[in-house]
Structures are given as C-alpha cells and as structure tokens.
C-alpha cells in the first residue's frame, strides 16, 4: 500500500517536474530567439523571405475563409436582427464580430494549422537530416539564422492576415446582406462606420492578433526545434503544434477579451 502510494506520488512529481522543466526550456528558447534577432534585422531579406512562406502563401486560405465567415455572419445576423426590426444594424454586427473576435481568432487558428505546422515540419526535418547540426559546425547559430527570421515573419504576418480576414469577412457580409438580401446599403456602411471605434475595436483586434502571432510562431518553432529526429518525432511535433497553438489562442483570447472589453 505504502509502496503504491509512493509510486503514485513519484509519478505525479515526475510529471510536474517535467512540465516545469519544459516551461523553463520554452522560456529560454523564447529569450534566446529574441536575443539572437540582430541578424534578422540586419539582413531584412531573411525575414521577407519567410513572410512570403508564412504570410503570402497563407493568403488563399485566409481570404476564402474570411469571405465565407462574413457571408455566414450576414445570413445569421439578418435572421436575428429582422426579428427586432434592426436589419440596418447588420453592418455593425458583422464588423464588430469580425474585428473584435472572429478575425484575430479564426485567422490565428488557420495560421496555426497552415503556417505553424509547416514551420514545425520544416525545422523538425532540418534537425532530422542534420542540417541544423551542419549549420552549427559551420559556426553559424541556427537560432539566429533559422529560428529568429521565422519568428519575426510570423509575428509580422499574423496581424496583417487577421486584418485581411476581417476585411474579406465584411465584404462577405455586404454581399449577403446588401447585394443578396437587400438591406439598405447606406445604413449598412454608415452604422458600421459610426459604431466601430478605431482604438476600442480595431486596435484591440490588432493587439490580439499580434499576441496570437507571437504564441503560434513560438510554439511552432519550439516544437520543430525540439522534435525527436525521427519520422514519428516530426509528425508528433506537427500535431502538437496545431493542438497547443489552437488551445493557446482560445485561452489567450479569453484573457485578452476580459482585459480589453470589461463592459466598457
């Protein structure tokens, strides 16, 4: 009995120690990435190349998803608003939903699945095929040369992608609400313009997507860099990137929303 209890306690202790160790490792990795960012900014081409891979190549999925989310919002919003005779507020509903919540959150989830998984797989495979070790043996720091440019590319791309997602979503809402259903175009745009505040809504949305960009890219890079150098290791790391990033985005969204929109 005593031995079993000791084994259970030791198991719990082991997991806690391992989780704390992992958190410490992740923090050190993050700090090292920031400290090694000098090269990336001195040679801005490194970041631009990665923005193409993480940002530009994610545009299609972001734009198409934004359009459909906006169209669905238009349909659902109209159904609810017409019950109260407030169809003219459709533009406000679509814009606020997108700018405050759906834009940053859904764009971040899509970014984690598309760009995050690609970053993890690429770095994991570079590790498995000894490319990172080769770089170290050439006296080139892989954190400065490989990790940091990808980190800043992700952080820069994320708010831009979220903005494009929201813009496309508003356009989708317009297509369904104004063009298809016939809501008055003037009130759609004017109410949206008067209700959406640049600082309260747009800026907060941008801050959210910036934080999500840091979280998603950090997780993707860490998982890739720490992946066991085997096929199973890389595939497991890629899955963990998508799962952990998605959960982190949703949890951070709750915290940020609670801080930003406290019934103001």
């Amino acid at each position, binding site marked *: 009995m005593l031995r079993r209890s000791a084994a259970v306690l030791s198991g719990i202790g082991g997991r806690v120690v391992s989780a704390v160790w992992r958190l410490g490792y992740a923090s050190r990795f993050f700090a090292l990435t920031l400290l090694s960012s000098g090269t990336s900014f001195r040679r801005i081409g490194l970041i631009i190349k990665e923005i193409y891979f993480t940002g530009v190549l994610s545009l299609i999925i972001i734009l198409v998803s934004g359009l459909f989310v906006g169209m669905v919002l238009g349909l659902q919003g109209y159904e609810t608003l017409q019950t109260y005779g407030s169809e003219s507020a459709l533009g406000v509903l679509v814009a606020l939903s997108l700018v405050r919540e759906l834009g940053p959150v859904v764009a971040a989830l899509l970014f984690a699945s598309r760009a995050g998984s690609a970053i993890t797989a690429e770095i994991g*495979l570079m590790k498995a095929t*000894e*490319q990172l070790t080769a770089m170290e043996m*050439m*006296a080139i720091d892989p954190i400065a040369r490989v990790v940091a440019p990808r980190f800043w590319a992700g952080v820069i791309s994320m708010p831009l992608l979220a903005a494009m997602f929201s813009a496309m979503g508003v356009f989708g809402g317009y297509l369904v609400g104004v063009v298809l259903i016939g809501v008055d175009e003037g009130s759609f745009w004017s109410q949206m313009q008067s209700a959406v505040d640049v600082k309260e809504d747009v800026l907060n949305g941008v801050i959210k997507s910036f934080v999500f960009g840091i979280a998603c890219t950090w997780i993707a890079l860490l998982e890739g860099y720490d992946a066991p150098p085997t096929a199973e290791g890389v595939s497991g790391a890629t899955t963990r990137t998508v799962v952990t990033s998605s959960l982190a985005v949703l949890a951070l969204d709750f915290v940020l929303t609670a801080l930003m929109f406290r019934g103001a």
Partner: protein
Amino acid sequence: MSAENLVEIDNVSFAYAQREVLKGINLNVPRGKVVAIMGGSGCGKTTLLRLIGGQIKSTKGEVRIDGQVMNDLDQEGLYRMRRRMGMLFQFGALFTDMSVFDNVAFQMREHTDLPEALIRDLVLMKLDAVGLRGARAFMPSELSGGMARRVALARAVALDPMLILYDEPFAGLDPISLGVIGNLIRRLNDALGLTSVVVTHDVRESLAIVDYVYFVSEGVIVAQGTPDEIRKSDKPFVHQFVHGEMDGPVPFHYPAPAYAAALRLKAGHA
C-alpha cells in the same frame, strides 16, 4: 602538445547518462595526414568525431585541436575554432531549400564580405574540384546519393579549413561513387594541405586512402597502425573486422540464456 599533431585526444572518456561510451581514449592526428577511426556500429567512433567538433564535451581527459583545449572554449571560441574546420555528414546534410551553388556559397556569404562575383568564382572552383560544376543549378532533391556527398564535400572545403571531419563518408554509395569519394578525400587533403579524420566502417575503401588507422571497440582503442600493418595484423578483432568474418571477438549471437532453456526443452531433448 606536439606541434606535429593537429588533433590530440588525451585519455578521453565520455558517457551518455550512465552508459560509458568512451573509456580513456588516446589518439593523435598528425598535420597533413588522413587518419581513419574504424569500428563496428555503436562502438563510439561517431562520439569521438562529435568530441573533436566540440558538439559534446568529454567527461574526463582533454581534446586539443591546434593546441586549444576544446572543453575550455566558450560559444564564441568554439565558433572561431569551427570556422577552421569542415565536416562532411553521413548523408550530406545539404540545405534542402537551397541550390547546389547556394549550399557551397552559404558559408562564404555568412562569414565573409566577399563580393558576389568573387563568391561565384570560388564556388565554381570548389564545385569543379568535385566534378559537379555542371550541376550548380540543381536542388539537393535532384542529386543522387554520391552527388550529394560530393556537393557536401565542396561545401565542407568552401573556406579552406585546416581540419576536415568525415562522418561515414562511404555509407550507402554505389561502387563508382565510393571510389570517387575516397579519391576526393585523399586528393583534396593533399592539394589543399588539410588534415582529415575519417570515421568509417568501410575497410577496403578506407585502407586504400588513409595514412593511419585506429580501431575502436567498446569504447577503447584495440588496434592501430598503417594500412599495411592493419592488413597483416593477426589480432583477432582486426582480423575479423578486415575480413568481415561472421564470428570472432565480436560474437554473432547477442548474449542470451541457454538455447534449450529458452525453448523450454526438457533434459534429453536438447
């Protein structure tokens, strides 16, 4: 330290957690020579190469390169030392997102301020030395195993290092590529005035090109000598290794309980 030796490994031990991989190894690599470290899989020869490259630190003893104790170097010192080394990895480790040309130019662009026109000429010279000037526009995925190894060799000598480390350079190559790589290791070493350490288990190919051989088994050096001495050696381990014998000091059977007991045979049936 002897000025004659570029690499000196002095009573070095190394352990991964509780498992001791190297047990008091002594080994010297004279300047300008090609030295092979041979042994079976898992004997500790790649660990030795990693110690020389400063990727890991010995738990006991000293690894000295050009008189510098590797364990004493900080990150900056280690990187300074590595700029004077080149390494050929087992499967090339070429950067898969770069062309052959960019792979060879990589270190020149990272470590020097040379104009692009000069880098182009230098890269073409290095590629010509390995016979692949015509393949400069290829991506690594378009190369055969032997070609990838040759590009990696051109990349390893890109900055004219003093020491070049080869990790299993002959693994998985066809006979022609095998001969080409062996030849290049020798020719580049002599032409560029390098010193080379070749970790391998390929007996025939390496004995044809190296100056001296160390045999490692279970973490200790069990034999050493020139290729001729090794060929003539009557030491059981060397004999088994050189002639590829199935049984000997390295047994065919992994240690196991008695066969009859494992098959649960009663006395009289075994």
